[in-house]
């Protein structure tokens, strides 16, 4: 019964996703954003919700992926330094084939390199516990932004224009559709992967690390190994998401677009917490709600959006730390497969 229900739900969502750019063709860019936000929230949840290692640093992989995709896409065919120096996109023009080859290889690189980076720094950083880890990753993300803003070959402070969509494709809708389907494919890939993890022993290990790392270690789990693998999985998808966003935005700035700790870096934490940490659907719902809230309200409160964002963070964190799914779980435990019999209920009453 539940299998059939799931099948209907998933096929319905996929059909909706495939039809969305045609149904709401004016909102293609917004839909692409939504897909990327969901991916970021899900990968953050893998790290912060399941493993309990709350990170502000996943933005590092996002920005890294963004720079890598654009650099590979340009560097494969043209000299990168000349491109970034002053308006290279006017001198050098990617042909259609070159553009797609470039973005394909670029995305591949932007998935693998951040994962390797996560593995390399993971051993040093994942040994930190709790808030030290949080602040260390916060520093890492900001340091990356500041350093990227000083490197000449990727445009330094003046930014990096990513290759424009090939002009030979006349269809004006093609660019939006291309990036939408790219991000939608990424979303499906991430969801399938995360769902697979949720059914595996790996998730139980991550949860054990979250609940009590010392005990997990005492039980013979090599916690460091699993922590690094978990972070690498996060980095892999974050890098891809960054690569797609770089192509979509068309312009990379070191601190405002790529290593945007003030926006993206906070959003992903907020979305995951809003939906509910440590659940499969929580980040998806949280990201969707957040995106609708942001797009709907931010134009109304122009100029005040960051104040609203800050207040929102405080309110969610202080009054609503379990998130939407946690709240639902409290309210309707039967729906989550938790059997509550009379004995439990009595115990609950006594506690109160």
């Amino acid at each position: 019964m539940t299998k059939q229900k799931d099948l209907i739900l998933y096929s319905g969502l996929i059909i909706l996703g495939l039809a969305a750019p045609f149904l709401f063709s004016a909102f293609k860019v917004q839909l692409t954003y939504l897909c990327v936000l969901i991916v970021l929230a899900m990968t953050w949840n893998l790290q912060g919700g399941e493993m309990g290692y709350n990170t502000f640093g996943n933005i590092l992989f996002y920005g890294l992926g963004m720079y890598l995709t654009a650099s590979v896409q340009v560097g494969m065919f043209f000299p990168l330094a000349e491109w970034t120096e002053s308006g290279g996109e006017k001198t050098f023009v990617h042909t259609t084939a070159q553009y797609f080859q470039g973005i394909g290889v670029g995305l591949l690189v932007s998935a693998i390199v951040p994962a390797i980076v996560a593995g390399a720094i993971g051993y040093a950083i994942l040994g930190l516990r709790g808030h030290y880890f949080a602040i260390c990753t916060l520093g890492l993300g900001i340091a990356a932004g500041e350093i990227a803003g000083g490197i000449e070959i990727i445009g330094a402070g003046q930014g990096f224009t990513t290759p424009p969509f090939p002009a030979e494709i006349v269809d004006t809708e093609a660019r939006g559709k291309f990036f939408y389907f790219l991000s939608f494919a990424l979303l499906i890939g991430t969801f399938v992967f995360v769902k697979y993890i949720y059914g595996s022993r790996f998730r139980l290990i991550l949860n054990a690390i979250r609940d009590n790392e010392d005990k997990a270690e005492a039980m013979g789990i090599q916690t460091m190994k699993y922590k690094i693998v978990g972070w690498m999985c996060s980095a892999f998808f974050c890098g891809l998401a960054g690569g797609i966003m770089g192509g979509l935005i068309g312009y990379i700035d070191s601190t405002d677009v790529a290593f945007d700790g003030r926006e993206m870096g906070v959003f992903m934490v907020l979305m995951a917490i809003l939906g509910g940490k440590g659940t499969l659907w929580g980040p998806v719902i949280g990201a969707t709600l957040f995106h609708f809230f942001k797009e709907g309200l931010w134009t109304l409160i122009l100029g005040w959006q960051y104040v609203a964002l800050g207040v929102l963070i405080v309110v969610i964190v202080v009054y609503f730390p379990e998130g939407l799914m946690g709240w639902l779980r409290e309210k309707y435990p039967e729906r989550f497969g938790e059997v509550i019999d009379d004995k439990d209920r009595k115990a609950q009453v006594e506690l109160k």
Partner: protein
Amino acid sequence: MLMVQASLDGILLGILFALIAYGMALQWGVMNIINIAQGDLVILGGYIAYTIYLWGIHPAWGVIISPIIMFFVGWALYKLVINKVVDRDLFISILATFGIAIVFQQLMNFIFGADVVVAQSEYGTTMLFDNSVTLPNSKIFSAFISVLYAVALVIYMRKSRLGRAIRATAQNARAAKILGVDTEKVYAATFGINAALCGIAGALISITLTLHPYVGLPYTVRSFMIVIVAGLGNLPAVAVSGMGLGLFEEFADYILGTEFRIGAVFLLLVLILVYRRFKLSRKREYLK
């Protein structure tokens, strides 16, 4: 001579950082909260001094006016948000104060504008070694005031009733409560004192360095760094590591260039944490 210049600049700057870090150590030790908005409180204090400068009063008076105002800002902040996160998970306090930091940044941006501003103290400069080393008198003034306030605070914490209550709460909040200490009030006062220290530091920064609504976070990170190197409640160590950080920053500025200065600070944070992690892992311990 460049070395001398950088060293002097670094030490004088470091004393200022140590003052902010002392505030952070205080509230971290007492309330077990890491306040990401620390730097933004500093900048707010700076803007208060800048405002009185705009009114035609000498900005140096800011070191008296700004902490008084900031004490109440801190108190209000405690009553509004912080008291709800004191006993909770540390990450919640980090995120909540991060939210406060964003709100503060944006409100300062609205009120004071996004320009880089500086309050002119017109204290002139001291020339040393045949005019090859220039030392603004405002920097000497700021270091002097920082030391003065730090010493005053230490004496206050030792001698006064509230100071003793704060120290008792830091040692064991529950025991202090049993013995009749109003811990809620102590927490509020601690956060207020921390904010007041930020106010002093901010007022000094407004005359020695520059102010901008978005430069708060580096001050938070600097004070965090100083605290983890020096430990909680060890004032001489805080002062020394503050000066060390100031030196590091000035030399990073000269060697790597100004555009990497903030990046170097954040990288140093990562390096210090990683170093501590490897040092402790030999004893199978971790940072608490």
